[in-house]
């Protein structure tokens, strides 16, 4: 099962490190990622394999959300199917 993690907010030091640390902690493997700065806004999207995640999905999402809050960033984790179904025919 794969999930899409999106991180948006004001650019700061250590965003990637903190997000990947949370993933590593619960055994989530990052498959792909991209990052851009649009004007001042930091935007990062990651595709992660969560099939071996050690915690339930909702808990993992909460952890990341909390991690985001600490950096004043917004982090969303959503199953990749929602994007596939909305944007692919």
């Amino acid at each position, binding site marked *: 099962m794969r999930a899409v993690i999106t991180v*948006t907010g004001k650019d700061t030091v250590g965003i990637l490190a903190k997000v990947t640390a949370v993933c590593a902690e619960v055994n989530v493997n990052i498959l792909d990622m*991209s990052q851009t700065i649009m004007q001042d806004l930091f935007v990062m999207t990651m*595709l992660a394999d969560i099939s071996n995640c050690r915690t339930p999905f909702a808990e993992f999402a909460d952890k990341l959300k909390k991690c985001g809050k600490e950096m004043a960033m*917004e982090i969303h984790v*959503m199953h990749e199917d*929602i*994007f*596939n179904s*909305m*944007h692919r025919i």
Partner: protein
Amino acid sequence: MLNNNDILETIQMIREENLDIRTVTLGISLLDCADSDIDKACSKVYDKITRLAENHVLIGEKIEAKYGIPIINKRISVTPISMLMAAVTSSGNSGGCVKFAHALQKAADTVGVNYIGGYSALVHKGFSAGDRELILSIPQALAETSKVCSSINVGSTRAGINMDAVALMGKIIKESSETTANNSCFGAAKIVVFCNAVEDNPFMAGAFHGIGEPDCVINVGVSGPGVVRSAISKPEMAGADIGQIAEVIKRTAFKITRMGQLVGTEAARALGVPFGIVDLSLAPTPAIGDSVAYILEEMGLEKCGAYGTTAALALLNDAVKKGGVMASSSVGGLSGAFIPVSEDAGMIEAVKSGSLSLAKLEAMTAVCSVGLDMVVVPGSTSADVVSGIIADQAAIGMINSKTTAVRVIPAIDKDGRNMEAGEILEFGGLFGSGPVMEINNFSPAKLLQRGGRIPAPLQSLKN
């Protein structure tokens, strides 16, 4: 890898533009619960609903977390209760239909859904055993329960309009409003009078589980007026012609519907029941921006209700269907744009500013689903006038082969005073607040007293 812009677009739709799954409704057939002993029937009803819907809310919440998409309501629709009441009355027993409403309420409380629909009767060609008894019990049933919703089908394109039922429903709506006057006349907000009612509608208050449906089925209602409005308000759409507007609405409706399809199939799989339909309706909420009226205004109307509103709404309704039909394996329910006045910030403003009248709303119902919805009228409105409104709506539905509905609320304040045009009746929550609208009080009494049935219309020579 998915396209970044697509990902961000989805997140923005959910975060900023109020995109959500409005309702996941579990339809449950209660035909096997019929019993000549009403108490036995009620206990069978309770048992069946709590057994089949035990995990309904839990599964909904799990899907919400998995996809990060809010599912606002988890609901249940059941077989029209009049059919169960028929078994009771035909065996010589009578009275106590309200017991079914209490059984439904208890079951809804146990499984944790917020509404349960199906305190209903289908009387478009006439009353059968149980129908009249159920209808007469509606005011009491809705006053004594909080989650039970009622709907009555009084007409259809194939049967015509049952004018006896129309006359009766005017009285029932008045009475429901009076018995719940201390609760914002909420009883009347839980009754819908239909023409051409659909069997798989997931939206309240008009949801019931039709007799052609399987034993248990999942139907999903999506929403997203905010998303559509935002799509057509983008700077690049400023000079777009009306055909381009229709294209953008289609594309947006496609995306919204795909999400509904995904959630519906997932919920059906988790519950082990068949997936029914996605209802494509654009359902507004009082939240800022989540308004159908604002979409119409974004298209270029100074205010919703101006001349041109019916045309803009016709385009919107049709484009939503065209986009949605391709996105789902099975589209059904009411599918269109809802125009409930009290639930739509733009409609409320339009009424307050004098732009939107009841007459214009009536014209709008001819081109969209569903009808005069959540319209608050003065408390002094007579039952006959309410019946007249129902008859007109039913006629629009019957002739145009579409569903129409009436949900009007005669406004009475907590002290029992009839509210007048211009005042505001507050419902709170998703039901919003309704400005009392001006009404034409000339009487249709004699027409109603004639009784009988308006014959079914001709299906050719369409002009």
